[in-house]
């Protein structure tokens, strides 16, 4: 497994990158250039769906960075994704203005419903798009910083770390379910109207969001690829394989771990911010431990420690999920459960590893 990253030819990486580039540009271009009744025109549903997959792929990529390269099995990665989503959701809520059901110019509907008189302090500033974007990376980043600093400094590792990350997202899940928190409670944030003055339902905005998701994924892939090949990245990989030895060599292991953890959390926040406008809702269920475990299975399925494996895994698993929950709603959990078992027992290197092995056998 550990040799997988280096044994891969750059060809695979390049082809994944090219495919992504093609998808990113062709779909919005088709929609802009062709009339709605043309066979080359993608429906708004398809565009949003694939856009959603792309933001999931970015989320998977960010988890691969901490799990595949640094060996931290974070079972609460979905929390950062959800926090990024909430940050952009708060901006979108403020954009509704007086067009809500209760018509309050300042307070979102759920606050009027709860008889709140004024906006809580943490909602200030979210009427500015720039501020919201800043929060998309800062909020998950600072949570990851505080949590990681505490955890890595006291050398919480392995399954202990996994369990407390799960506890973290579970605590957030419970907290966001509370109406008193001021994030819409059970229902979350929804009924968005506009983004930067453009209707969020319009096809142009959907295509743009799609384009942005694709571009964010490509840029993130290139950045991560570069990152893991720098000296920093090598140290991080070394920590995964022999943490104690790296520490004895004089590296401050906790700082490297913290760095990569915070960076990945920020990427996850961006993924969440791209996801929410495309699906039109963010609610506390995004914090559920099951969601975070699903991210892990995307990465494991695709092949961890390869970056593009996580992207392939996220796309394949989510496509299967969409198709299968439509066809056989009851079977999805069987399949997901089965995937966990099959991947860990039979396919430790995921799809990418399987393909690599087959290719090698053919050559031999």
């Amino acid at each position, binding site marked *: 497994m550990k040799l997988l990253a280096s044994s891969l030819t750059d060809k695979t990486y390049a082809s994944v990158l090219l495919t992504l580039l093609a998808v990113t540009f062709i779909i919005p271009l088709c929609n802009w250039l062709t009339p709605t009744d043309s066979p080359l025109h993608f429906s708004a549903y398809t565009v949003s769906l694939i856009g959603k997959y792309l933001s999931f792929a970015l989320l998977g990529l960010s988890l691969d960075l901490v799990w595949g390269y640094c060996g931290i099995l974070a079972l609460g990665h979905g929390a950062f994704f959800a926090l990024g989503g909430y940050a952009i959701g708060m901006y979108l809520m403020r954009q509704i203005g007086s067009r809500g059901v209760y018509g309050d110019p300042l307070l979102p509907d759920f606050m009027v419903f709860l008889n709140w008189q004024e906006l809580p302090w943490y909602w200030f500033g979210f009427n500015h798009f720039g501020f919201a974007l800043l929060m998309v990376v800062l909020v998950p980043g600072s949570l990851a910083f505080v949590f990681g600093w505490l*955890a890595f400094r006291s*050398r919480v590792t392995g399954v202990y770390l996994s369990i407390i990350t799960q506890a973290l997202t579970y*605590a957030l899940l419970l907290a966001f379910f509370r109406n008193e928190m001021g994030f819409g409670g059970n229902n979350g944030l929804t009924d968005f109207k506009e983004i930067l003055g453009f209707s969020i339902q319009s096809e142009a905005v959907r295509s743009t969001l799609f384009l942005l998701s694709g571009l964010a994924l490509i840029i993130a892939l290139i950045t991560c690829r570069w990152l893991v090949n720098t000296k920093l990245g090598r140290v991080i990989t070394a920590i995964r394989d022999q943490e104690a030895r790296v520490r004895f060599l004089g590296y401050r292991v906790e700082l490297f771990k913290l760095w990569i953890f915070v960076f990945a959390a920020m990427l996850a926040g961006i993924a969440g911010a791209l996801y929410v406008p495309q699906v039109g809702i963010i609610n506390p269920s995004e914090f559920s431990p099951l969601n975070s475990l699903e991210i892990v299975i995307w990465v494991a399925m695709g092949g961890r420690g390869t970056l593009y494996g996580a992207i392939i895994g996220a796309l394949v698993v989510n496509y299967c999920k969409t198709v299968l929950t439509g066809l056989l709603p009851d079977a999805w959990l069987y399949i997901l*459960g089965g995937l966990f078992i099959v991947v860990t027992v039979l396919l*430790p290197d995921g799809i990418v590893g399987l393909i690599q092995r087959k290719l090698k056998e053919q050559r031999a």
Partner: protein
Amino acid sequence: MNFFSITRYGLASLMLCVALSAHGEPKTLNTPLLEALTAIKQGSMTQREQAINSLVELKNPRSLVILQALLSGKLFICKDDDKLVIGEPNEQTYQIRDAIDDAPLAPINAEQVSKINLTNKLRSQLRKIIGELELNAEQADTRLAAVKAMNQDIDERMLELLKTRLAIEPDARVKQAIENSLLLQKVDSVDKNERIKAIEQLKTQANLSVVNKLKSLIEKDSDGQFAEADSDIRNLAEAALAKINTQLQVYSAIETVFFGLSLGAVLVLSAIGLAITFGVMGVINMAHGELMMIGAYTTYVIQQILPNQLGLSVILAIPAAFVIAGLVGIAIERGIIRFLYGRPLETLLATFGISLFLQQTVRSIFSPLNRSVATPEWMSGSWQINDFLSLTWNRFYILIFCLLVFVLLLQILKHTRLGLEVRAVAQNRRMAKAMGIPTARVDAMTFGLGSGIAGVAGVALSQITNVGPNLGQSYIVDSFMVVVFGGVGNLLGTLVAGFSLGIANKFLEPFAGAVLAKILVLIFIILFIQKRPRGLFPQKGRAADS
């Protein structure tokens, strides 16, 4: 009075003769009861009142039952045969019993009976009369309840009754309650010294009527005037109330500790199996919650098979759940986990997959809806210690059950061959293997033991929560927290951690609310792990290195 009773007797015996001749069979029952009952059936309220009084004077054990039925509107006359019956409405029909000899009769339609009505005046009179009768009832509990009910609205006559009863009352609790009532009465007397003495004595007794009485003494009415004119009495009452309040705080603390312990017992039960698999084998079993779910569903199935034997089915469910969950556990270990030893993160993922699989299986078999498991009678209700402190039985039993399971498990680990082998493998797997211990078999047995205990925990859970496919999921994070907090591989640590987390949770709840309390506890554990990454009671020696 005498004159009335004579005429009444005359009238009643006449009616009786008619009734007897109509039925044509001689009744050996005591005639005065029959007479009184016949009078009750007559329309006029005066007659009814007299009949009630004569029923009291009869001192017949049936009198109380009949009068109670009359008060609660359950006394009816059958229109067909003019029989007096006590009826319970049961859907369209009435389930009736003979008022005189309590013999069950065939159910009857609502139109075939007519209720014996009462006026409000008669009703309040009846209430007092029943109180008197109950005061002299045979069961101490009935007498106690009667004394307490009297405190609501006491008059001179009842006071006399209480005093006479006090002299002959054998039961200490009833005696205490009567003294209490008399003291309460003295608070309102005219003599100031008497009042002061009464308040002084009352302040050692914490019960609801004392608190209400004292509160009424220091209350202001709507004009801002004190209801009690004497300021000495007010101050005294306030001091007494303050003293009682400290006592009440102690009670509420006891109650919180009990709730905490019972929550802790649930946590310990759910975590203890995990402590074995995680602590001894180093296997993170994310499907642990689902093994509890299997135990809970086993209880449900056994109850479906034996619907009339609630108590027996719960008792039977304990070994059954142990065996079934244990077998599933062994299957999981042999089928999947053994391929993943030494790769804890992969084990975590694979067992998580198993948990999804089991959940969905249960959903397919039993439907996604919650199933309700009935609680046997001896487990429902609560233990009323006094007016302010009552402990629910089911929580109490679970607490005891948890301790039993814990002690049993410790004994198994300490005194059996399996326990010895398990401990040896936990301490040093390779050395144990070198000494000839079949580690693979021990692994399977250990996993089966842990899973079986999860199943047993599920039986306990089925008695306090809904049984549904998500039962396990809601406990898995908590039980991991308990294991990690207590220190992996240390059963005693699990026990201490479970109880302290349970108590902490319950003490936080009044200030923070249930959800926030849980969040605070989670945050506390997350911070605690930073300070002591190996829990409260870390393992020492070689095992700690791994």
